[in-house]
């Protein structure tokens, strides 16, 4: 009896969708289900065709992109040698967010690409409003950047 009641209740109020798929991104790895829901509420899903420009160098920075599927190429006119190719589960725009409000590189989709975008104002609001969530995200950001620095120039800082 009690059991069927529970089943009935679950039917009326289906359990909330848990967005564990977001955990594949480094900076959301440590978040719990509820915090992931907060993040998910702010995300915009965008689809780009192959060869489509996502943003250009010098544009104001408004969103950070997470690659859900596909490939993105980052190039810079100022430094023609640097050319980055990012794949699934990578994030771009994060360093620009902390270093200045301008894009340093041009991003182009190499294949058909699905991106998740979060506005920097929403990102900041998430961090400010929920300190525990914010600490986790910022800690992961630091880890990500430390990793990048180590990979790029092998300096010990």
């Amino acid at each position, binding site marked *: 009896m009690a059991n069927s009641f529970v089943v009935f209740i679950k039917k009326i109020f289906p359990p909330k969708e848990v967005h564990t798929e977001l955990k594949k991104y480094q900076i959301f790895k440590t978040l719990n289900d509820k915090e992931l829901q*907060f993040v998910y509420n702010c995300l*915009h899903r965008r689809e780009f065709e192959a060869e489509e420009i996502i943003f250009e160098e010098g*544009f*104001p920075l408004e969103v950070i992109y997470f690659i859900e599927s596909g490939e993105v190429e980052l190039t810079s006119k100022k430094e023609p040698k640097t050319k980055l190719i990012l794949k699934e589960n990578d994030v771009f725009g994060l360093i620009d967010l902390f270093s200045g409000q301008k894009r340093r590189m041009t991003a182009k989709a190499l294949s058909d690409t699905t991106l998740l975008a979060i506005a920097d104002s929403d990102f900041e609001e998430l961090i400010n*409003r*929920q300190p525990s969530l914010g600490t986790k995200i910022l800690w992961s950001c630091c880890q990500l950047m430390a990793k990048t620095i180590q990979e790029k120039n092998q300096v010990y800082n």
Partner: protein
Amino acid sequence: MNWNRIIFILLLLTLIVLGIIFYSPIFIYLIISIIVSYIFDPIVSWLEFKGMARWIAILCVYAVIAGLIAWLVITYIPRLIEQGNQLIKFISRTDVPLDQAIVQLPLVHSIYEFILKVDQTIPQLNLLPQFNQLIELGVQKLGELPQILLSNFQSIISTVALVFTIPFFSYFLLKDKRKIRQALVSLAPNKYFELTLILFNKVDENIGTYLRAILLEMINVGILSTIALTIVGVPYSIVIGAIAGLLNIIPYLGPWIGGFVAGFVILVSGLPPIMIVWMAMAILIVQFLDNYIFYPLIVGRTIRMHPLVVLMTVIAGSYFGGVIWMLISVPLVYMTYSLIMALHKNLKEFRII
């Protein structure tokens, strides 16, 4: 551009136009609901971030507001009605014809006697009939006031219906705020995605801040004016305070109009004219407190519009659609202005223009 595409777009446009016609009666409800949802959004979001489900947070806010309204109805409204009734009773009293009642008021009476004296000394002038005509005109307008209230009975009823619809609308607007926003942004093509997001945030922030500031200002000035006028001893202080609060939406001009209303009431109710000076001082003190202490505290930054622009906007608004447009034209123009500024800046930065 092939024909299929053109036909599809034409069909879509027709559908949109038809939709606008179909839904046009509820636009005003929707706008008011949006305003309500903007006002409550910060509290609901705050509760949400504290770990409460959004719909429970909204219901909690609603419960508190309902309690507050009930409390206001119990304590504040009877006095408001009483004061309003006194005003109407004065206008529609039957024992003495109204023009005589007005002439009997001390101030008007002294003017009347003065004119009588002038007429006696200079017989050719004949000022008195003109003065009487003026009073008659005023009486006529005053006498129409209850009539206006009665003939607009239907719109009053529909206003009551509106009051009961709006909480439902704003409940869903509040609950699905993020989803609505995601859906709207997803309509933008990739090229304009970030631009749309910036404009969205800008408008969102501006409208939100402005509406909340206006509301807090109205309540603040209303309460302060009521207190100040009660201390001075002006009759119908609650009504005048409420009017002054409402008029405060119009920057620069609003407080003046509120002052004139108070002055008019003092004259009509036959108090000594020196009271106007005290009332003016009270209103000045309220404005001072508001402008230099409460407004910076509540809003943080003031919205700067040149007085000339405000004046022009208010007058144009009154020509366009009466009192309501006088009240909303200034915020509307301000929002349009800030939107255009943001649009121009970002269109340039994204190298679209």
